[in-house]
């Protein structure tokens, strides 16, 4: 067994790093194999992976409409724009 392989089989820190790299980019064929073997034997990292993907989904799913400006700020903003127009 290569040392890289031995390292990953028991190393959750490295496995979660590869999980993130795979989700947001790409990993090599060797890394894919290492991760596959790790996940086959590590239920904790499997939960991590599911939750990591879920977090991305929730994050991207935020609607812009979840945020609203207060009326006072809008009023000030309108006044500033009017003032700026009248300058010209």
């Amino acid at each position, binding site marked *: 067994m290569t040392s890289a392989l031995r390292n990953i089989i028991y190393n959750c820190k490295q496995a979660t790093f590869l999980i993130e790299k795979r989700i947001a980019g790409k990993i090599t064929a060797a890394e894919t194999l290492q991760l596959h073997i790790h996940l086959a034997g590590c239920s904790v990292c499997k939960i991590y992976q599911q939750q990591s993907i879920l*977090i991305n989904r929730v*994050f991207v799913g935020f609607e812009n409409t979840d945020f609203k400006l207060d009326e006072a700020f809008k009023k000030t*903003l309108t006044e*500033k*724009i009017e003032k700026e*127009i009248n300058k010209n």
Partner: protein
Amino acid sequence: MQNEMDKGLIAKSLHSDPLSWVEKYADYLYGFAMSRIRDEDVAKDLVQDTFLAGLQRLDRFEGNSEEKTWLTAILKNKIADFYRKQSAINLKVISVEGERQDFFDAESGHWTEKDYPRAFGLEIDNPLMMKELGSILNECLAKLPGLWFSVFSMKHMDDLASELICTELKLTAANFWVIMHRTKLNLRACLQKNWN
């Protein structure tokens, strides 16, 4: 009266009516900024800067694109400027005070037992539960260092290539992935802690 007419004429010839901007676009632009920056004061400033920059460039707006698209493009540039400033401040701060470093055993790389990811017991097809999870995630995101949030948001919100983000924020590829990893570890732990 003459003045009012002038303004109307100007608005027409410029394909745009700035007096209606706040009413039409302020909430939209604010939401756009907030979903990428998560700081109310900064987001408000950026919306204001966007409108003022728009006014100055009004003569160059030719009505080829929608007003909303045009203003959003200005805002996107402002957000990119903000990210760059943040990264200049945080350049050396990869490790952050208060950040959890000890998710794993230093020797073996195993999860330390108290940090084991545990199932959330979540029904993903339950909209109420997902909404609750979303609001907790929001609080967790607010605790992230600015640079980390910028990296995370540019990657997932704007779907930018990792290389581009590194160039924009002056990060090495190695640092980029360290930040992505630590961001997720901290977000996940924060969710687990505050869920239920």
